[in-house]
């Protein structure tokens, strides 16, 4: 679905009434697969590449989903297995009191009004089956105890709504028991995966990442060309040919970023920003073609897949004999790096505790995993005055900052990016308090939902974020939405086009590179997007 096929923004949500609910009880309301609100199934070839069950051709809108005959048994067995492996899952099945505090915290509910997108009901979809099959009271009383059988309509409902959750964890901030819907969705998706229900926008990146090291399936020689192309762009803008070390053994640091940063604009400007900064400080580092992806769509597939895809980062660090690892601006990548990597793929005892070779700062907070976030790294450089900056080169940009879900609610990374932004740009305006920091709203394209066929749902779910952006655009003249996530940079661009035209989207290191005075650079007349910097005339002799 293309943007122009949607109603006008002001009409999209005019029928949304939070307090108007269907007459029929939710357990009896079958799911309606409306085009624009669901994702296409995974192609068989992608499932085969990563050895996942039931590869076949099937269509969401057809009655028969070609499930294995014993699909109920498979799912209930997987259910039991996970109840015994994840205390989180077991507990979240047991203790919800349905107080409803989470109900209007989900962006998909706020923009779509579908009550099953209230986090509590999303979890009840699976909890009702839990009660029916795994609790004493449920087994005795069935429906009266809130239980229901796992039937095909229930399974279809799971598929629809667990791929309408972007695993942003906003509801878990408000839950009095810390029930995390992302955890419920992750396990819900794992169960769906057992019978071959997955979406292509997740499984294709997964398959690509497994085989070639990045989501886009770019082979090593393609990466080199792609990266050299950006090296040339930087030379055009600054007159400096920056370092581009690739697969270099013995480098001090391995640098891993999300592939979204070198795949398309505006992520590529962030990528160029990294190159410029790391060149300027003379860092001894290397890129890797094998570990050319920090993002990890395994997170949207299964815990096992997280581990399978993430393994390459430590493996490559070991092979290249680096001391520690630096990671780029990404969202869900940092959920994995921060909360799963050491547990799954560690211990990283072959690496050293990270120390910035430029400032001598020890990154104590990363001494176990040995992987540092570039925002931590750069804000440390700035703190020690290691970057020569001219923020006036960003005067034409009036920025606001979108806290990406995972750096916000899984890492607690709030001040570092803000420190950087304030230093490199004079015009920084925060969005309203209820939409930033730990209460930040998702781009509505995370967790594999940022595809075109799901466009209506994305634009609906994007309303809360866009609404806050429109506010600072109108009040403070903001024209740039900064974010620290590759999925954001891709999906927020579309969302701004729809909801808040005139606001462009970009990463933080793009602005750092704009402001960075590089040794021996030529007079800058354009910024890292190649757009003229207002008030700066090209010198005559250059013309």
């Amino acid at each position: 679905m293309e943007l122009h096929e949607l109603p006008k923004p002001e009409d999209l949500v005019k029928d949304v009434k939070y307090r108007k609910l269907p007459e029929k009880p939710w357990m009896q309301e079958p799911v309606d697969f409306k085009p624009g609100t669901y994702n296409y199934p995974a192609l068989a070839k992608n499932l085969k590449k990563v050895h996942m069950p039931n590869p076949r051709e099937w269509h969401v809108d057809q009655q028969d989903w070609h499930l294995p005959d014993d699909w109920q048994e498979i799912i209930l067995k997987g259910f039991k297995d996970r109840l015994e492996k994840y205390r989180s899952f077991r507990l979240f099945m047991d203790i919800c009191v349905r107080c409803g505090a989470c109900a209007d915290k989900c962006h998909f509910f706020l923009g779509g009004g579908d009550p099953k997108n209230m986090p509590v009901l999303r979890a009840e979809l699976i909890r009702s089956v839990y009660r029916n099959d795994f609790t004493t009271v449920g087994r005795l009383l069935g429906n009266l105890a809130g239980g229901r059988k796992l039937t095909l309509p229930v399974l279809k409902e799971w598929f629809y709504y667990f791929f309408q959750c972007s695993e942003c964890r906003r509801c878990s901030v408000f839950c009095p028991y810390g029930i995390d819907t992302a955890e419920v969705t992750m396990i819900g998706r794992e169960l769906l995966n057992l019978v071959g229900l997955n979406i292509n926008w997740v499984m294709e990146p997964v398959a690509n990442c497994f085989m070639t090291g990045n989501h886009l399936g770019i082979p090593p020689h393609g990466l080199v060309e792609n990266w050299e192309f950006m090296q040339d762009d930087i030379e055009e803008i600054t007159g400096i040919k920056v370092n581009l070390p690739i697969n270099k053994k013995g480098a001090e640091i391995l640098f891993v970023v999300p592939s979204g940063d070198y795949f398309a604009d505006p992520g590529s400007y962030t990528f160029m920003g990294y190159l410029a900064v790391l060149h300027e400080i003379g860092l001894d580092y290397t890129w890797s073609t094998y570990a050319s992806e920090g993002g990890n769509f395994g997170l949207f597939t299964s815990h096992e897949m997280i581990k399978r895809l993430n393994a390459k980062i430590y493996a490559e660090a070991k092979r290249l004999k680096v001391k520690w690892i630096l990671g780029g601006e990404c969202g869900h990548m940092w959920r994995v790096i921060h909360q799963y990597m050491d547990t799954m793929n560690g211990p990283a005892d072959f690496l050293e505790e990270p120390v910035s070779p430029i400032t001598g700062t020890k990154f104590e907070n990363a001494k176990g995993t040995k992987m540092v976030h570039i925002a931590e790294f750069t804000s440390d450089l700035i703190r020690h005055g290691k970057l020569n900056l001219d923020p006036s080169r960003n005067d034409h940009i009036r920025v606001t900052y979108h806290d990406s879900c995972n750096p916000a609610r899984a890492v607690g990374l709030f001040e570092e990016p803000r420190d950087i932004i304030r230093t490199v740009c004079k015009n920084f305006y925060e969005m309203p308090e209820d939409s930033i920091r730990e209460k930040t709203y998702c781009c509505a394209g995370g967790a594999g939902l940022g595809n075109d066929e799901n466009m209506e749902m994305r634009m609906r779910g994007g309303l809360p974020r866009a609404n806050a952006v429109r506010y600072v655009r109108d009040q403070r003249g903001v024209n740039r939405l900064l974010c620290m996530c590759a999925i954001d940079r891709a999906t927020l661009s579309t969302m701004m086009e729809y909801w808040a035209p005139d606001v462009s989207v970009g990463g933080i290191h793009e602005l750092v590179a704009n402001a960075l005075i590089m040794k021996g650079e030529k007079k800058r007349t354009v910024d890292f997007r190649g757009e003229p910097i207002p008030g700066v005339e090209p010198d005559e002799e250059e013309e």
Partner: protein
Amino acid sequence: MNAWYSVFAALFIVLFLTLVSLIGVGPVGAKGIFGIYIPYLAAVVFFVGIVVRIIQWAKVPVPFNICTTGGQGKSLPWIKNDNLDCPHNTWGVIGRMFLEVFLFRSLFRNTKAQLGQGAKLTFASAKWLWLFGILFHYSFLTIVLRHLRFFTEPMPSFVQWISYFDGFFELLLPTVFLTDIVFLLAAGYLFLRRVVIPQIRYLSLPSDYFALFLILAIGISGVLMRQVWKVDLLQVKELALGLASFRPAIPQGIGDIFYIHLFLVCCLAVYFPFSKLMHAPGVFFSPTRNLANNNRMVRHINPWNYPVKVHTYEEYEDEYREKMKAVGLPVDKE
């Protein structure tokens, strides 16, 4: 399940339970069963049930540290860490859990979203649920502690103090306890919001109403017993002490209303371990709250971590060696 069906099903069950006790001690006259056997049975189910459930939870591993960070994490020395909303050490976790358990920190964040003309979304503060939630739980706690006076001789001084302050405003004779009023009001609010707010009505289950009705019935029967059909408290205490010292006996002349009250309490105790009421012990186990956000500092161990199939660098290089060499990339094997 239809909302009104849920409400009435729950109401019916509570009325049925009331009736059971009314008939049981009245016409049938089985005071021994309702005064001795059922309370013992309920106490056993309650304690064993809770312990079993907690052991079940405790036996399930916590494979990953999935702390939800609600503030600035600990990172560079000059950046202030919010150790309560994003704890990095045990003290922080204790502080966070304290705020969560005693002050309902997360619920305090609650907001209410409203969608206006032109797709404008606004947020308002919404603290009523927090306020009534906290009033409900604290008055419940106070009432439970006050009841210790029936089970102890001599009464501990803190129980006397609680009763004294709780009955400080001597509105009526006999003293109306402040917490009784607050408790009924708060439980009433929790019920009303369930039926009045459409979203909450839509998602509520019979069990949500059942717990509230049962608790309300306990509260109402307790108040009736104090204010209307008064029972002899000394005899109640005699029964309670007898139960507590395992020398149970039924004193003569305690009004039937007392047995109804006691039976409903027993029902709640029996229901507790099998229901959502387990949120009380459960909150202590919540991995998004009770773990420190120190993931990159301290390795969290997953006891069932197992090896997985990966695509190794060697396989990768085998597939692309010639092309890598063509663009000047170093290779491990020539």
